[in-house]
């Protein structure tokens, strides 16, 4: 079914390019040709690799911090009260503002780019995990206390599985957010990566190049989602009765 869906996408694209004209929307073969040329020269893989590395680092950073802060805020009233205003501001601050400020304050550096991306994702992870921590079942908590579970065992086997759907939701939405933001950060202040290349293509009005990078990027996202994220989610929920 997925293959059919991909095929429909390419066919629609081809028809649209015939209708609009190749100058604005080049047909698939032209774009694929550019993609192969970029791949041959190595530039495609280099840029994709750099972007992926930024995604990975900022994702891990934001998820780790976000989970810890969210859990803490969900469990402690005072932490929740103190953290909430910050959370509201960060949640609603446009990504562009954070990225530009990061570049101004920390220079056009790798650290600034990664921090800006991570900070954009952080508040949504915090909010999701805070809900998860609030929804923890006190009955199971009492069970663990009665049976004298050591802290580590209680966290791993009682708390973590209850948080797992929230962590998965935060990871899923967070990854989508990062995919969107990483290119903006690269566009604005990095000398490599998919976002940078798209910026170059934009300035030269090189639409095949622009589409070649967008498409490879989309393909990578699709690959990671199906090969990593979905099997991981399936494993987490294997104890649940399956929906028909």
């Amino acid at each position, binding site marked *: 079914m997925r293959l059919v869906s991909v095929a429909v996408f390419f066919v629609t694209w081809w028809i649209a390019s015939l209708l609009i004209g190749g100058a604005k929307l080049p047909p698939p073969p032209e774009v694929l040709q550019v993609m192969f040329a970029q791949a041959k020269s190595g530039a495609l893989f280099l840029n994709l690799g750099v972007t992926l590395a930024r995604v990975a680092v900022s994702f891990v950073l934001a998820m780790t911090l976000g989970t810890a802060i969210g859990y803490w805020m969900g469990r402690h009233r005072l932490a929740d009260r103190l953290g909430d205003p910050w959370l509201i501001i960060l949640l609603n601050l446009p990504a562009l503002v954070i990225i530009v400020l990061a570049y101004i304050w920390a220079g056009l550096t790798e650290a600034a780019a990664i921090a800006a991306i991570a900070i954009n994702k952080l508040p949504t992870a915090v909010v999701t995990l805070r809900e998860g921590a609030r929804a923890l079942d006190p*009955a199971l908590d009492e*069970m663990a206390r009665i049976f*004298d579970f050591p802290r580590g065992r209680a966290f791993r*086997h009682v708390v973590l599985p209850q948080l797992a759907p929230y962590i998965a939701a935060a990871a899923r939405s967070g990854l989508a957010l990062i995919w969107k933001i990483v290119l903006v950060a690269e566009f604005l202040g990095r000398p490599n990566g998919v976002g940078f290349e798209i910026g170059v293509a934009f300035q030269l009005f090189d639409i095949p190049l622009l589409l070649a990078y967008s498409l490879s990027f989309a393909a990578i996202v699709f690959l990671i989602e199906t090969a990593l994220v979905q099997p991981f989610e399936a494993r987490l929920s294997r*104890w649940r009765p399956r929906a028909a």
Partner: protein
Amino acid sequence: MRLEVEISSKEYANAAGQRHEVLRHIAFTLEPGEVGVIVGPSGCGKTTLLRILTGLDQDYQGRVSRPGKQRIGMVFQEPRLLPWRSVEDNIRLAAPDVDAKRLSALFEVLELSGHRSHFPGELSLGLARRVALARALAVEPDFLVLDEPLASLDEALAARLRSQIALLLEGRSITTLLVTHNIDDAVRLGDRLFLLSSRPATVRHALPIQPPRSARSESDIAGIKSEIARLNHADS
């Protein structure tokens, strides 16, 4: 383990801020290895009492003495199994030191052998209760607490689980506290009976049940039940 209880009062504040007294002057002693049964009307505070006795609730007036650090095995009213772990893992997480032979014997008595690798979501309430009971016994508790273990099971299933509990308690000498509102269960399983009043709950009567469980005949049971009925009648 010897259990001495002297609770003078336990209050709750409801959402509107009013205070309700749930327990008032509950005093009793349970000798090591004895099975005490607490019988009282629904909602009289039996579960609250158990929460205090197991240390889950520390906010009360009075004193509960349990010597040192004791291993507690508890069967809650709801099974409270970890839904994401198999039956066997649920038990092993609570009792990491249980050896395979003892565990198999427990599974055998409770007729759980075929369900080891099932997840709690795949079990009926009766089965899940038995898993909870297996978990409570697998930790080799010094103090065993059973909160309405037979509630909302049908008659036949309740009778079977009751005889399984009796069988399991027989071979061990665990200080046990059983909570129920069923006089029949109480008389069949207990050594000592505590009759509670409705809220605020106090111990109205404490009576030892004679003869010992293994020698108790149907006519003994009928006799004790009519004695309890007489006491209840005299109170009302």
